[in-house]
């Protein structure tokens, strides 16, 4: 599976019958440090993710399996919404040395030995660092998820209802 961020939505009335009722999101693939990598793509959604949320998606035939019993013709589907990412060692440093100082700047930069987490807050996701190997998940992971819910309203309803969105922000293409 791969990490990504929801950056938009797509609507299409004329489409293959197997895609009826499916929600389509524009996803920007990310590295675990939340850097953009690669081109944006269109994913079906099985989670009700909202704008700006960090998600993980699956590629290939498994993307159709995510939406059983429906069998949509899809090769990428969002299958989870990320609460926390723990990266105790800097990726790319195979020796396992702690590389907190080489990580991209984030809210927790400079906190040595402090346990921070990527939490979904009302201000949006924050980058995560932790100086402890094998750190436990943040104890307030669940409340953070609740905050994230308020900040990014989900749309679990079938896209039939959201065909004409009443609220639009950002660019229309």
């Amino acid at each position, binding site marked *: *599976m*791969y*990490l990504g961020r929801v950056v938009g939505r797509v609507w299409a009335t004329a489409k293959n019958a197997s895609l009826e009722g499916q929600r389509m999101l524009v996803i920007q693939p990310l590295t675990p440090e939340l850097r953009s990598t690669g081109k944006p793509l269109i994913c079906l959604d099985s989670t009700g993710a909202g704008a700006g949320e960090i998600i993980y998606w699956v590629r290939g035939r498994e993307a159709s399996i*995510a939406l059983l019993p429906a069998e949509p013709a899809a090769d990428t589907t969002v299958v*989870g919404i990320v*609460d926390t990412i723990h990266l105790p*060692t800097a990726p790319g440093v*195979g020796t396992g040395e702690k590389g907190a100082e080489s990580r991209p700047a984030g809210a927790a930069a400079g906190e040595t030995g402090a346990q921070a987490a990527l939490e979904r807050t009302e201000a949006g996701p924050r980058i995560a660092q932790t100086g402890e*190997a094998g750190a436990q998940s943040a104890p307030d992971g669940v409340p953070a998820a609740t905050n994230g819910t308020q900040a990014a309203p989900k749309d679990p309803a079938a896209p039939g209802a959201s065909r004409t969105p009443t609220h639009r922000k950002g660019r229309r293409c």
Partner: protein
Amino acid sequence: MLIARVVGELVATQKHPSHEGRKLLVVQPLNLDGSNRGDAVIALDAVDAGVGDRVLVATEGFSAMTAVGRPNSPIDMAVIGFIDHIDLMPGVS
């Protein structure tokens, strides 16, 4: 399959039900010389791997699903073993 190093863990409360009960690991695929091969990806853990372990990752869906024992689930990558040792013929980079 690929050789990779486990570099982190991911927590997601809202996810596909077939991902419950297993760890979601952030793994960095490696080249044969130990350098990074592309970006790190997310794999479901089938063998209880921890951060820092060098592991074998299945990158094809059917193999990943059967490794974690969950057929018909949207899993396209899974950690399926630990690497003890790699032997390369001389001249292979």
